């Protein structure tokens, strides 16, 4: 489902050159739940961003859902991302001015989906994460766990084949973290959604099918 070949990412300033990823080769088959671990600054998020086509590798080749990623800034790439990928961020990144249901509808705005259908799909996604009673609420009225569940609903509303989660439990206590993890595992098992998750939490990582460890931009296991 995702194939990274010889991926290198180098950040260059006038005075210093930093290698964030060094010759990474990973293949994520369809339906796999993969976790990526490593110390801070080892390149985990950069790797996830490259998988999600929101960052460009310096060298190497990225294939997502059978498509070799070319132009990262094109309209076609944006559409592909919209249809195939869902993102979950550590700090939720919900739009505070919009209600829960409007936040969940966001990915559908960029598709040719009628308002009525958008609403139905968003309601279904919120029901799936157990928040059907919070649709009219605003993010500021929710707990951290609830916010992350809204973020998951937003990620799955468009029924993507891949979900990329960047430390989805990082800002939550262990009980809430477990809840989120359960939802992700259910998604993976019941719907066969391919999930790649960056985490610091060894316990969470062990619940996934496979664990990749990074250190200083290199894949160590």
């Amino acid at each position, binding site marked *: 489902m995702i194939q990274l070949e010889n991926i290198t990412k180098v950040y260059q300033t006038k005075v210093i050159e930093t290698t964030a990823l060094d010759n990474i080769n990973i293949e994520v088959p369809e339906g796999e739940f993969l976790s990526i671990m490593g110390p801070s600054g080892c390149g985990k998020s950069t790797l996830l*961003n490259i998988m*999600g086509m*929101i*960052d460009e590798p310096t060298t190497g080749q990225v294939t997502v859902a059978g498509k070799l990623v070319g132009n990262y*800034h*094109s*309209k076609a790439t*944006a*559409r592909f*991302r*919209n*249809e195939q990928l*869902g*993102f979950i*961020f550590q*700090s*939720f*990144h*919900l*739009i*505070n*001015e*919009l209600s829960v249901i*409007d936040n969940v*509808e*966001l*990915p559908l*705005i*960029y*598709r040719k989906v009628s*308002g009525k259908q958008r609403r139905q799909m968003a309601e279904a996604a919120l029901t799936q994460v157990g928040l059907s009673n919070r649709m009219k609420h605003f993010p500021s009225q929710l707990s951290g766990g609830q916010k992350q569940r809204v973020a998951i609903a*937003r990620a799955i509303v*468009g029924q993507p084949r891949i979900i990329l989660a960047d430390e989805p439990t990082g800002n939550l206590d262990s009980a809430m973290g477990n809840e989120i993890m359960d939802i992700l595992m259910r998604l993976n098992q019941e719907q066969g959604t391919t999930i790649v998750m960056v985490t610091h939490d060894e316990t969470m990582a062990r619940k996934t099918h496979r664990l990749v460890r990074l250190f200083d931009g290199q894949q160590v296991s």
Partner: protein
Amino acid sequence: MFSSYFKLAIKVLGRHRFFTFISLFGISFTLMILMVTTSFLETELGSHPPLTEKDRMVLLPRLIMKQMVTDTTWSVDTTMLDGQPAYDSTFTVGKKRQNSYSSSSLSYSFLDRYMRDIPGAEAHSFFCSDTQFDIFINGKKLNFKTLYSDATYWEIFDFKFLAGRPFQPSEVERQVQVAVLSRKAAVDYFGTTEQVVGRSIEMDGKQLEVIGIVEQPSNSKDYVTSEVYLPLTLMSGSALTETGFHGPFAAVFLAESPQARATIVESIRQKADRIPLPNPEDYNKLELMPATVIGLYAYYMMPVQDDPEGALQMFTLVAIGLMLLFILLPTLNLINLNISRAMERSAEIGVRKAFGAHSGSILAQLVFENVVLTFLGGILGWLFALALIYLVNDSQVLGDTQLQFNTAVFLYSLLICLVFGILSGLLPAYRMSKLHIVNAIKFNNL
């Protein structure tokens, strides 16, 4: 999609109320000034009675007489030739220059003799609009501006009659003592506009029968704005018989079509070259100054001598320049505000892009939000403009000119709002739409 943008736009306005206040104030104040200005220009230059046919009219308000002389330079050289002084003279003929100049309105006899048969003109009228009379009634002094004209005047200028009728050619010819009053004059003199037709008004030693009452023209043009309108044959003294070129009269010609105005203008200019001058030693060149309604308006506003079309060009340039400046200054200010507003939303932009928004959708969203903000400012500006127009009209600071807030002005204002919103939103929106997703998401400002 746009309902979602609209919802968000309204929410974003509430996020920083001070910014919103500054933005809305800037937009509404600017739009208020622009709306009042366009209302003023529409009132002054629009096609309203009595100038509904203004696009077919050519006015001839002035005649210019000049003495043109040629500068000739003589130079004398001296030299010695065979021991004798010799002289050699040369002269250079320079350009013609203006030595003396006289400009005024025209005499009736001049118009009668030379301006009755102008090609392209369907009708013409001669009139005199610079007379004033003091009238005493019930111990009160009234000063009435009076306009003398022929009967065709009423065919060319479509005054709105509140009562009665205009004077007829036969009444002009027979010097019948009749008058048409403006609404204001009727109210000032009789205290009402009801049942005034048929009553008499005493003016200039004459008992004049009121035969009609017209609505006050809502503009400042002296060739239609008056209190009393009389047949020109009632003019005292030698105004109609004076044989000189200068006098108190002006003329208006009605072209068959707006395009035919150029023929009239050209014919009048050409005719000026063929008219024999009474005292060529004083003035050896005659120029006539035909002008369109708008050209003449610009001529009175701009310091351009004897050239209404040049004045119109300058007027247009100045008006456009001022409008642009007036729009540009708050636009620049709004761009600045919008950039800082938009920067705060970079995380949101990043998330939207991650979920499939391309640069074009982000650009459309931010410009749309700005257009919403501008339209809100537009509504406020519209209300302020209504209030200002009411105050201007009520205080009569523009004299007889009564500003009106009509549909055309409202449509101009909507257009201005749209341009304003797009202009001030485009640059910040473009910058934000080009943000790199990863960098944008790092701003955790949601």
